[in-house]
């Protein structure tokens, strides 16, 4: 195919790819992550296609490499796992993650209790503007804010003040990743409850406060209190467990431990 033919093909493919890119953007997938995903799918598909068309049940890595233009070493690595985003690409994550991490760790942006403080958008400093300039140089603070807000990670308060909601970049709302996470959490809770029914002599921890009736007007205060207190508790629990796990190294088969807390709200 000539250069003009490829250009025409690229234009035609664009109309098919563009809606997909929109979905990727909606899901918070970066371009390197999407490229990694596309390459992985491309290589897997090429192997299947070769297997069908060339009547070779298992085409070699070199053959797949020739068809796809991907180096054979990468082909071998990609085919060793199911199609997906490569770990190396995924680890890099969203650039705005650096801003979230700094907001949670740079002493300038923490309050006296070591928690991230609400920031003014621009002035006085330390502000969101100074945070982005320091930790994501070259990026426009306005664009970063728009992106974090779109992902539901920054709450816009009155008077141009901002509150961070999460330490890691993850799109909020109903999306495949979050539905998967919801399923995993529900499974973990049910596993503990089922275990306790089956083995009452060796129960896993499961307890709750008694229900307390409160005036609906006080709900925001109560929600904020629960979020702050449990957040601190879970961080401490995780660190204490990590210290304990790190001090004992054993070759024996281990167990995975996780502590989760859930608040329940019901209408009176």
């Amino acid at each position, binding site marked *: 195919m000539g250069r003009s033919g490829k250009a025409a093909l690229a234009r035609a493919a664009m109309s098919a790819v563009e809606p997909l890119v929109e979905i990727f953007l909606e899901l918070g997938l970066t371009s390197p992550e999407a490229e990694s995903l596309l390459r992985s799918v491309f290589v897997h598909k090429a192997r299947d296609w070769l297997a069908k068309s060339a009547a070779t049940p298992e085409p070699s890595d070199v053959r797949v490499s020739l068809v796809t233009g991907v180096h054979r070493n990468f082909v071998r690595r990609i085919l060793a796992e199911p199609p997906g985003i490569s770990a190396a690409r995924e680890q890099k994550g969203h650039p705005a993650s650096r801003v979230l991490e700094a907001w949670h760790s740079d002493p300038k942006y923490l309050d*006296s209790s070591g928690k991230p403080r609400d920031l003014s958008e621009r002035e006085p400093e330390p502000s969101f503007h100074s945070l982005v300039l320091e930790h994501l140089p070259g990026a426009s603070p306005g664009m970063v804010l728009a992106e974090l807000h779109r992902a539901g990670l920054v709450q816009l308060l009155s008077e141009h003040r901002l509150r961070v909601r999460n330490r890691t970049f993850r799109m909020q709302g109903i999306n495949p990743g979050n539905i998967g996470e919801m399923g995993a959490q529900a499974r973990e809770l049910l596993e503990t409850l089922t275990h306790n029914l089956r083995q009452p002599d060796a129960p896993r921890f499961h307890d709750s406060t008694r229900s307390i009736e409160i005036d609906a007007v006080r709900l925001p205060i109560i929600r904020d209190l629960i979020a702050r*207190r449990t957040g*601190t508790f879970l961080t401490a629990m995780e*660190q204490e467990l990590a210290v304990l796990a790190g001090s004992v190294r054993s070759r024996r088969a281990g167990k995975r431990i996780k502590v989760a807390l859930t608040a329940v709200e019901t209408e009176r």
Partner: protein
Amino acid sequence: MSRTTTNGRTRAAVTAKAGDKIVIEALAGELLSVCLATLKTYGLSAAKLVELAASASVDRPGRKSAFTAVLAEAECLANLLNKWVENPNYRDATGRPAVLPLVKGKGCSFAALAQEFFPGWSVADVVGFGTKTRVLERVGRDKVAMINSTVLFTGNASLILAHLIRSVRRLFSTGDFNRRARSALLEGWPDRTSIVAVSDEDFSEFIKFIRPQVSDWAEMSNRWLFQRSQSTKSRSRKKREAGLQIFVFRD
């Protein structure tokens, strides 16, 4: 968790078998030497300390407390922050302390808080004091936001010394109560210590790990006490200040 250490510094004459009086005299001497050594680090000479000790040993009823005077302004600011944090009227829609207008209007204002806790001060002076102590920041021209709910004395020698005196008095008060408590385990007031030898690096990590916990415990205690003190049932009763003080130390 509690661990009692013996470090060899205790005088040889003072043993468990020695009489109570001898033990207490030795410990009192040690307490005074700890205090004197600390005060020397604030620039006081040995001669001046002897003079101050002689003066302090004379009972003078009605003597004004220096530390109360030094801490008075910080105390007023702490009370102002307490109301801002704990009173639901001063919270925003998200449940956190609201950004407040400086001037009095229909709803809650910083001016009202300033007038209540700093009578005779201008609102601008209270804002200046709060900004200097890093508990609040200006939002535009006519509003203020709380950025810390704790008044910190870090870096100010006289405030730290005054705070130390108050802390020592509180510690003495707890000790005094506990020495009178008889045998019941839950009769004494809680006084716990955790102590382990660690490297500088681990100590820094420990600070990061424990700071939010310490803040939460103080906040939790404050909320409980504040809400109880505001209840109608408790309003008419005679009250004395009570609370919880937590600090990290390194020997």
